[in-house]
């Protein structure tokens, strides 16, 4: 009926073929009206939260990256990946607050009150990730863990205690909780787990997790060296146990210590706010900005105060570089961060000032222009420094990650296999909050945009 009415009103329209609209020049008004009438899409709400992500990179065969398809690919024709040279996203169930990389294994922990608080992946030949029951044989455990698996902890109040920090050494690991002390697991052949050394103990598939509670106050930081452990308490004292042949326990002798003992020397009475170690040398920072060192000094780490190659009592390092905020120890080199945001390195190896600087006993500053400082961005500052065995990492206040040092099996994460003699950016899709450095792999905690 409508059609008939229209027919009477207008002449018959010319039959068209093909295009519905004539090819006349488009006038502005209908276009603008069409634009206004277009639907508006919303991709993110006003209060959209930034997600927390974990990125890993480095050597994959040990399973320390936590992605099983790198070691055992999904399809038969794919080949296992030896090195992950750029950051790769690791999916985790919870927000990871602390991560630590050991020698071929990784521990991730979250501040949740759920039962599962710590996940481990990588090498487990010394039960450094606890006992991971094998699914094929209920009496045996796994030697290599390829994806983040929960670490069972014997907590008294599992739904109230929170795990604050984890730390990993060569074959042992330490887990710090807020109310139940420190849990240690792994190799104890030098007493690094804080319990008595048992002769001929087999550490693989062991269920032993030792709990350490008697310190003078609550432990607030745990640090693992290669075969020794350091504990820092709230009062500012430092305890140590483990192998001491290089003096890294700082107790005045070169023997093994199997019970955490308080350190004296230049540290006695000083309020220590940060301890760091990864190899056989240790550094501690006091609240007044002084730095103390002990342990191995074969690579000139402590050569500014002494000629001996092993120092077994903490010694004050009188550097005139300003108040020190943070220190990090590597295998052969050390790095400190001052209050102004300057980075100083010393020791042996690729220190970050070009290929000509191989060793120095006195700290040398790395120019801030290498970290992105320029007239255009004058307020970029380095916020944290971290050390792996032969490489260094620095985080700026803008959330950028700079790495330099020896690129062992792709641990630097820059996408190139060569060593970097000065700080080089790592492209991570997000703002890097924290990073943990290992021997040949790294883990970073990142906030998305």
């Amino acid at each position, binding site marked *: 009926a409508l059609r008939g009415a229209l027919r009477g009103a207008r002449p018959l329209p010319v039959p068209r073929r093909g295009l519905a609209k004539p090819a006349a020049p488009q006038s502005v008004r209908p276009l603008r009206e069409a634009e206004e009438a277009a639907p508006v899409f919303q991709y993110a709400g006003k209060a959209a939260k930034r997600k927390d992500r974990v990125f890993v990179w480095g050597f994959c065969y040990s399973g320390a990256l936590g992605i099983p398809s790198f070691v055992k690919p999904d399809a038969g024709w794919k080949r296992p990946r030896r090195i992950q040279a750029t950051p790769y996203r690791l999916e985790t169930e919870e927000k990871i607050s602390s991560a630590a990389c050991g020698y071929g294994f990784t521990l991730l922990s979250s501040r949740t009150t759920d039962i599962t608080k710590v996940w481990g992946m990588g090498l487990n030949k010394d039960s450094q990730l606890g006992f991971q029951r094998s699914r094929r044989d209920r009496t045996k455990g796994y030697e290599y863990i390829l994806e983040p698996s929960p670490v069972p902890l014997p907590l008294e109040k599992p739904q109230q205690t929170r795990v604050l920090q984890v730390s990993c050494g060569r074959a042992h690991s330490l887990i710090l909780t807020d109310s139940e002390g420190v849990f240690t697991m792994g190799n104890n052949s030098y007493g690094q787990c804080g319990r008595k050394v048992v002769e001929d103990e087999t550490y693989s598939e062991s269920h032993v997790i030792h709990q350490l509670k008697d310190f003078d106050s609550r432990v607030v930081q745990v640090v693992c060296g290669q075969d020794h452990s350091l504990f820092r308490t709230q009062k500012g004292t430092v305890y140590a146990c483990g192998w001491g042949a290089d003096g890294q326990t700082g107790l005045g002798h070169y023997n093994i210590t199997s019970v955490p003992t308080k350190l004296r020397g230049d540290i006695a009475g000083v309020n220590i706010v940060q301890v760091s170690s990864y190899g056989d040398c240790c550094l501690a920072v006091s609240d007044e900005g002084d730095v103390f060192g002990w342990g191995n000094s074969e690579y000139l780490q402590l050569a500014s105060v002494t000629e001996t190659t092993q120092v077994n009592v903490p010694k004050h390092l009188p550097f005139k570089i300003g108040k020190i905020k943070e220190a990090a120890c590597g295998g052969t080199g050390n790095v400190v961060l001052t209050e102004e945001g300057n980075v100083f390195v010393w020791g042996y190896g690729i220190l970050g000032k070009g290929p000509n600087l191989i060793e120095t006993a006195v700290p040398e500053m790395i120019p801030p222009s290498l970290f992105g400082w320029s007239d255009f961005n004058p307020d970029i500052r380095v916020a944290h420094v971290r050390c792996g065995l032969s490489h260094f990492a620095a985080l700026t206040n803008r959330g950028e990650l700079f790495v330099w040092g020896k690129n062992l099996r792709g641990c630097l994460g820059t996408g190139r296999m060569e060593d970097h003699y000065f700080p080089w950016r790592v492209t991570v*899709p997000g703002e890097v909050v924290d990073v943990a450095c290992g021997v040949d792999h790294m883990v970073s905690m990142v906030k998305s945009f």
Partner: protein
Amino acid sequence: VRFLPAPGRDCATELVPTMVPVLAEHPLVRGPRFRRLKIGAGHRLDVKASGVFVLGISHGNKLLTDLYNCHLSRAYTVGGLFGKATDDFSDTGKLVEKTTFDHITREKLERVLAVIQGTNHKALLMHSNIDMKTQEAYELAVRGLIRPMGKSPPIITAVRCLQFAPPEFQLEIHCLHETQQYLRKIVHEIGLELKSSAVCTQVRRTRDGVFTLDDALLRSQWNLQNIRSAIWSCQLKVQAEIERTL
């Protein structure tokens, strides 16, 4: 010979060729007769953009090639608008999508700009073809002088947010080997990264190597005296830059 409207009529719609007196015909004028001028153009500036455009006149064309080989950076002021996405990344194109933008803050924009700067800085070092293991590479990197001296994809050396008033924002971009369409694409990608969309409203070149806005002549200033004084004042700068780089 000039084409002038026919004299004597009010509504002149025809143009009549007439001989106009020219200074060069005067018997007392000496010197070579310029019939043509060889003018060469510097780095391209497309139709929708504006700003500093370098021209070389006759002997200056050789300097233009030298300046091109110096690979100096250029500075642009880029204006953008959140909420729209078009097919050619500018606000005169066909609309593709409209999105909300109320979740965008200046902090998020600065974060995205920091990431862009970081990745481009890495590209700068990689395309410069210098062996990173040498001490000279380290010295140049400290001073910030590493840049690609050959062909390379567009690289942004610095980005800064000048103004942010949603939905509009303005950026200052210093870049190398770029085209204006690449800058518009960058604005579009910034919009995508912030989970919204953006179009580019304005591209204005504020600096081309050593030539800044102060040296540039406006359309109303295109006469002989101004051009001569501009060439005179820029000569020293150009010489110094060429000697420094080559």
